[in-house]
């Protein structure tokens, strides 16, 4: 089944089995492993990608439905070495532990900020409610999204030093 996708601004051609999910094509055909497998049923958010501006569970989307759509994965958020503001903010707030769910959280947050530049805390919680984190960084992730949106005053020196 030959399919052509637009992934992170580049046209990619793949030939997966007919029932392949978008997640399996991203990870196994395109080598974009930053999108993680978590549950295969859209319940955890680890596999979130942006499709035509919306965060979706790539494990539930058949690959053939993604044809002719604009797909952005975690690998496509930064512009060269310049990180997306949400990525910068997650580092600044140390909003990660094992990091397995982080790709999905950042994707969900980036999609949120693209449609609502100044979401309140409830809107952030709602937008990320489908992204499960077992290590427990929810509070930090909320602060990171607020920081990226510029809706939270950040005191100088309030962040850990960054390691480059």
């Amino acid at each position, binding site marked *: 089944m030959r399919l052509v996708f637009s992934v992170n601004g580049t046209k990619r051609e793949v030939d997966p089995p007919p029932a392949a999910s978008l997640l399996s094509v991203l990870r196994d055909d395109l080598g974009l492993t930053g999108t993680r497998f978590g549950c295969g049923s859209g319940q955890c958010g680890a596999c979130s990608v942006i499709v035509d501006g919306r965060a979706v569970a790539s494990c539930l989307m058949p690959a053939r439905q993604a044809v002719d759509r604009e797909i952005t994965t975690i690998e496509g*958020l930064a512009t060269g070495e310049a990180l997306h503001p949400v990525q910068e903010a997650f580092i600044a707030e140390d909003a990660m532990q094992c990091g397995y769910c982080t790709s999905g959280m950042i994707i969900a947050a980036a999609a949120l900020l693209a449609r609502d530049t100044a979401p309140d805390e409830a809107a952030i919680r709602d937008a990320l409610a489908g992204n499960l984190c077992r290590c427990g960084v*929810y509070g930090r992730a*909320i602060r990171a999204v607020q920081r990226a949106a510029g809706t939270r005053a950040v005191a100088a020196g309030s962040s850990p030093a960054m390691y480059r």
Partner: protein
Amino acid sequence: MNVEERIRIEPDGSVTAFSGKIEFGQGIRTAFAQLVANELDVPVERVRVVLGDTAQVPFDFGTFGSNSVAQEAPALRLAAAFARRSLIGRASAQLGIPAARLDTKGGTIGDGDGRRISYADLVRDAPLAGAVPEDEPLLPPERWRHIGTPLARVEARDIVTGRARYTADVRLDRLARGAIARPPVRGARATRVDDRAARAVPGVIAVVHDGDIVGVVAEREEQARAAADALEIDWETPQRASSETQVVPMREDAGTDAALASAALTRSATYTLPSIASASIGPSAAVVDVRSDGATVYAGTHRPFGLRDAVAGSVGLPKESVRVMPQMSSGTYGRSSAPDVSVEAAVLSKHARRPVLVQWSRAEEFAHSPSRPEAVLEVTAGLDASGHMVAWRYDEHTNVHTAAGPDPRVAAMTSGRNAVPPYTIPSARVVLHVEPTPLRTANFRSLAAAENVFAIESFVDELAHASQQDPLAFRLRHVDDPRLRRVIERVAEVSAYGKKLPARHGHGFACTLYHGTYVAQVAEVEVAASGAVRVLRVWCVVDPGLVINPEGVRNQVEGGIQQSASWTLLEELRHKDGRVATTSWDMYPIATFRDAPESIEVLVEGDRGAPSTGVGEPGAVPTSAAIANAVFAACGARVRDVPLTPERVRKGMPAGAG
């Protein structure tokens, strides 16, 4: 210990440090880099830390018990300090300047007159080597540049860009995918495997039936799963060998029963906690490449050397020929002490003669992973007329808490962890009962400490109320350890414990001393008329001795509290006929962004003069009791059974409170 086991100066002057501990998100790679950078006086980004690669690191028993920093910090610091002194010695010889006039700066050594040589130049001819003295002098605190400085995770940029490679992201040449056919009952063996339909699935490379393992190797994951589902298998359920309850006395003071009998006030209560899932977001995964002369294992594991031996045994290779290369791993909180998924991938790889990636499905992860055992905790205490505890009797009933299985030598420190309260009580009897279970149980964050501390700290609260004493003052009457007193008093201060709260709000307190780390917490909850509990705020003061990375400590402790709040209010693994019936997140809700407290405020107040101790587990330990005590304060319901569901809370409310 020889320096070359721990520290290597690379030709470019950068530093590589080696440890057998594993990073699961605790931030130990970052803390170790800070420690080594500190003693070697180099920028932290010049330090690379190799963790758990069995071909490169010294033997380590395993990453558990929040012991990584406690065990490794002294060794890494000493080795790095010795390396620095050795480099100064070499510089002295090469520059012809007495060592006493030389000092380090940013990876170079020089004197005040501008003569300077780099670490790289000093190891060009011979790498550093030699035994590290146990009394190797360390840099004095005024020279510290990294210890105690908040630092973001060294892996942060890779994590936020998706470049970080977890086990399931390993891509090798000719990598195939494996899937396992699961028996209907744990321990059942396949007596007949009809693989005709499975072999017809496109992409199938091999159908494997080897010992207890039945599985399929295919080019793609979808194909392996479809083929495994297409196998027709007859299973035989073996008779389960019955085992006996192990009774382990943990403290037995003569006269406890008599002291209880003559106490002015006695109270008894029973607390229960269910079995819970480790519930990693990333299901278990391993990539194993078995060749005729050896094997390479890419996995998340708490025990790289134990895993090496298990894999070697499963495919009949000498253990020296197996290399375990731990990858970044989803947090598994103890679950990856079991070698299961790597052994499966190894057996499949051996038969397929290809490297094989096995990643469990979500249903497999819930139903076949080992889980935290349940616990029933019976406690009785007696107070004298002045309200002082004079006698304590505690019976802990639970199951084995380690992947290694029952072992009377370690039962007290594993299944019995924190069963003995941190309070001064003249007479106490504490007995652990490790009972058999058909379920697969194993290591989970803090082992039995979370269960025991829930019971002990809930019960102490009950005793305080029963004797009309303030719960905090009551505890302080029974605490001698000054560090425990300090965290208790500090958290009361920062939380304004005891202040008037709105209706249906309550403050609850709990504390613990866990593997040398002191933790005190106050939770503020709001209880709805329905019995639904919302955790609004948590304050925590933690003293883990000398702190390497305050930001890392805060993050770990916050996470422990958040995870523990989820256990406390939501989590219970369902069983049916001795099997786990839970197979998906909708059957096992955990806390989401909507449930997260408004704030979790962690004050890191480590005693700089005390050795560094761990923080991965201790933060999670007192939270259940802090929440339960807060629920009591908010609505009068004393809930002794976790999880604190709305039904239980509503039922516990005194008449008229609902």
